[in-house]
């Protein structure tokens, strides 16, 4: 993984960490990124801690050090704990995740490892615990976070490790 940044960030100080990052260099896409970021957190039915569960599972798959270090404050306020985070990669361990949480992780894995229409059993399980709107939210947040984390890795400047870092949704 590239430790040295491959691009310079824009010379801006808006206070929005997306706008002030390298993503701010592409004027045609920036506002859409900002709008989508807020919509993912504010406009969907899944709770922030559930969004964070999916985001962190994705970050682990992609190997994005920064994405794994970040915790969104809204998710922490919603009940996301470090004990829960530890279980993301061991969902059936000593203190297993709830059925709903396990389905979120299973959906993330389907999206990343073998994207296809869920089989009958998995779709039935999803329908039992998630509304159609929640399932759409889950798919769209994966589309967003997976693309974002791959982008972050590709741009370089990623350290070998980072301390846990709580941030707010960039608005």
């Amino acid at each position, binding site marked *: 993984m590239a430790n040295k940044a491959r691009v310079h960030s824009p010379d801006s100080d808006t206070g929005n960490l997306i706008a002030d990052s390298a993503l701010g260099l592409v004027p*045609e896409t920036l506002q859409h990124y900002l709008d989508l970021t807020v919509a993912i957190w504010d406009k969907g039915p899944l709770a922030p801690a559930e969004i964070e569960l999916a985001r962190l599972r994705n970050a682990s798959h992609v190997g994005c050090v920064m994405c794994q270090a970040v915790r969104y404050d809204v998710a922490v306020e919603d009940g996301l704990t470090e004990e829960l985070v530890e279980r993301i990669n061991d969902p059936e361990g000593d203190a297993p995740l709830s059925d709903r949480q396990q389905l979120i992780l299973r959906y993330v894995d389907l999206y990343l490892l073998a994207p296809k229409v869920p089989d009958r059993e998995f779709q039935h399980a999803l329908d039992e615990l998630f509304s159609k709107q929640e399932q759409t939210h889950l798919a769209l947040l994966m589309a967003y976070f997976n693309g974002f984390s791959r982008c972050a890795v*590709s741009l370089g400047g990623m350290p070998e490790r980072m301390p846990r870092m709580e941030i707010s949704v960039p608005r």
Partner: protein
Amino acid sequence: MAEAAAGQQATFATSISDLPEVGQHFLALYRSFWSLESLPAETLELCRLRLAQLLESDIAWEHEEVALTSMQRDQLRRWPDSAVFSAAQRACLELTEMHAMDARAITDEQADAVKAHYGEVGFVALVQALGVFDATIRLGLIWGLTSMEVDQ
């Protein structure tokens, strides 16, 4: 996601109809890549199609966002050995393949090759676009779409 009625096409529009407040922003982001100053739309279309091949999505492969020559479409799978792609396109296609396999494995040389043609802004735009194109293809597969048209 909302299910298409029997006989109706399954499109992005039908799939996001339960959550347009989020879905429309994703589609707006996707659309924004086709009019960049920093990268030609034809080059991005080659990259999108290469991702469709790598993810084995027939529907994404059959979709045409930008018209290309039939030679380029026909030879895309063999792009390293084909003479119909420019040096700039080849740099982008090489980055596309690495991004698809493991973004951590992208080398500085591969990034520099893209920057040599399109600058830092073009490089950022490309890695953004690859993430969004990859996502549209995955959504198409997971939602069982019958059309990749985002404006239907």
